[in-house]
């Protein structure tokens, strides 16, 4: 028994080393840099300046455009303004991925073993390509006078000079990300549905449950852990995305990924503020993930008892 235990630690060694070197070390450097003094680029003396800068403006709001009241308001604090927008874009991406991914997983799991293997592989195809190339391909599709608009014009849905006005908007960013992150929704949902005992649905039907009741009271709670995992994977990745807002969003509205990128890679660089932003985002998402897993864990326990 002891011998087996010791061996099992050896099995973990590569993973521990890998994570230790490539995750913990950079994370530690980020944490230290967030409390360093800004210099050219960094002075290793303790300073809270980055956090003061991060909180500047507090929760106050200002007009989006001082010359145009109709433009609405935004948070004065840069991180909050950008974070708020990032939250909604990521939430929309997650919702979209769920609405497409859940029925797809449901369909897949009801096929024969052979079909399942084929479909499982097909879902993976987008991940084989490079996200940058795919984003450029999406620009080609969605752009003004692009393939989609040309197609809609031949169908007569769009006028001769009509345009969808879709490209270079946050909606285009969401569309691109739904596509790119869809596999991360389908796979966990599929895995949880695969373990689902379909006789439970038959039992529910025998007891007089309608199709809707069977979905809401049987299938949904039992596939919730998979759905939660899928939503988390999509949301967390969408919140940190870099390529899509720049290419599909036309770099017109800031999201957190590009904002953090700019703190490091524009002049004058601000490593402490960039690190503080990255750290804050990481703490928030970790907290969110922990809460979500706790809730879905409780649900699972309840449904078993």
């Amino acid at each position: 028994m002891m011998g087996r235990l010791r061996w099992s630690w050896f099995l973990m060694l590569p993973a521990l080393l890998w994570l230790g070197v490539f995750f913990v070390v950079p994370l530690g450097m980020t944490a230290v840099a967030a409390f360093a003094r800004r210099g050219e680029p960094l002075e290793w003396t303790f300073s809270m300046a980055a956090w003061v800068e991060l909180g500047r403006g507090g929760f106050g709001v200002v007009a989006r455009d001082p010359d145009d009241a109709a433009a609405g308001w935004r948070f004065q604090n840069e991180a909050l303004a950008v974070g708020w927008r990032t939250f909604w874009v990521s939430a929309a991406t997650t919702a979209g991925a769920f609405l497409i991914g859940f029925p797809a997983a449901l369909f897949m799991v009801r096929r024969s073993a052979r079909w399942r293997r084929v479909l499982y592989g097909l879902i993976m195809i987008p991940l084989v390509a490079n996200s940058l190339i795919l984003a450029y391909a999406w620009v080609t599709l969605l752009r003004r006078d692009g393939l989609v608009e040309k197609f809609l014009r031949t169908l007569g849905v769009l006028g001769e000079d009509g345009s969808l006005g879709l490209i270079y908007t946050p909606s285009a960013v969401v569309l691109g990300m739904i596509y790119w992150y869809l596999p991360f929704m389908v796979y966990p949902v599929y895995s949880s549905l695969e373990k689902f005992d379909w006789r439970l649905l038959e039992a529910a039907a025998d007891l007089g449950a309608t199709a809707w009741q069977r979905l809401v009271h049987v299938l949904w709670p039992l596939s919730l852990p998979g759905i939660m995992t899928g939503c988390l994977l999509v949301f967390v990745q969408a919140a940190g995305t870099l390529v899509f807002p720049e290419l599909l969003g036309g770099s017109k509205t800031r999201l957190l990924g590009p904002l953090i990128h700019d703190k490091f890679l524009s002049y004058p660089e601000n490593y402490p503020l960039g690190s503080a932003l990255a750290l804050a985002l990481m703490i928030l998402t970790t907290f969110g993930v922990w809460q979500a897993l706790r809730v879905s864990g409780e649900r699972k326990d309840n449904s078993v008892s």
Partner: protein
Amino acid sequence: MRLSRLLAIFCLATASVTAAPAQTLKLLVWEEYLDPSVLKAFTKETGIKVVEDNFDDNEGLMAKTGTGKSGYDIVSPSDYAVQIMVRRKLLAELDHAALKNLKNLSPDFTDLYYNRGQKFAVPYTWGTSGLAYNKKKVKNPPASWADMFEVEKLQPLKGRISMLDDAREVAATALLALGLDPNTGKPGDLEKAAVLLRRQKPFLAKYDSASAEDSLASGETWLAQGFSGDIATAQAENPDIAYILPKEGVSFFVDNLCILQESKNKAAAHVLLDYLMRPEVALVSMNAMKFASTNKAIKAEEIDESLRSSAALMLPAREKRVLFMDPGQEMGDAFEALFNDLKN
């Protein structure tokens, strides 16, 4: 037994690596800066190997080399980046005795504010960021930056305009339109510029520095702020693209070749720099990459005909050239904040 054989092979392998003294220069330069054939010919002539890596903006270059332990020998920063890198003591002083071809450089690009006496940098290519437009689509082409902020002029081009995705370049267009100095953007000046830029933004398709010329050439956009060399590439694809230097003045840049202080191959690096300043060598890169050379020894008739009449070779009058200077931290932050606010 097997282990000792492995060890023997390992020792042999390392020995052969250390025995060969072949020098290798590591370059970190702009993408589409040097034609690959040029570097191959250099290796053939001198035996010095060259490895080339690329960066896409000065900020990325400075981030990569900022530690002084990047492992590179030669870099190609723009004017203001040379100024910053000299201040950060990252660049080596040039040995003019080893750079006989410095005499080939045009006085238009030598002895500029960041590089008095060519102490740290060999100016190699230059360009402008003016306005390019599609002649078939734009009925009343702009002549000035001020035109870029007039709603009536922008209205027919709504959603067909792109500006560079760069805080300094975009702010400069508004400051020039207002008759203000793009290099001393005081807070009050920047607020005035912000008003103009906010007014302009709803008419833009995008802010884009990486593929603005592709969108212009394909007809997706009709009017774009762009770098002259990139626009020359678009002109080669689409003959309807025209380029103007707005009358208030235009952002003008010089990209340089510099040797890093950390380089252990400074002598070989000088050999390459001198080689690249030969007119016939500079010409190859210029014709291939479409960025104008600073080399005055290149004969005009040897330049590709299409390039001669392109955006790339439109040199603004001396007093219209706006060279960016290091804004320093406080003002640099103000420029960044202006651009970020515009995107919030």
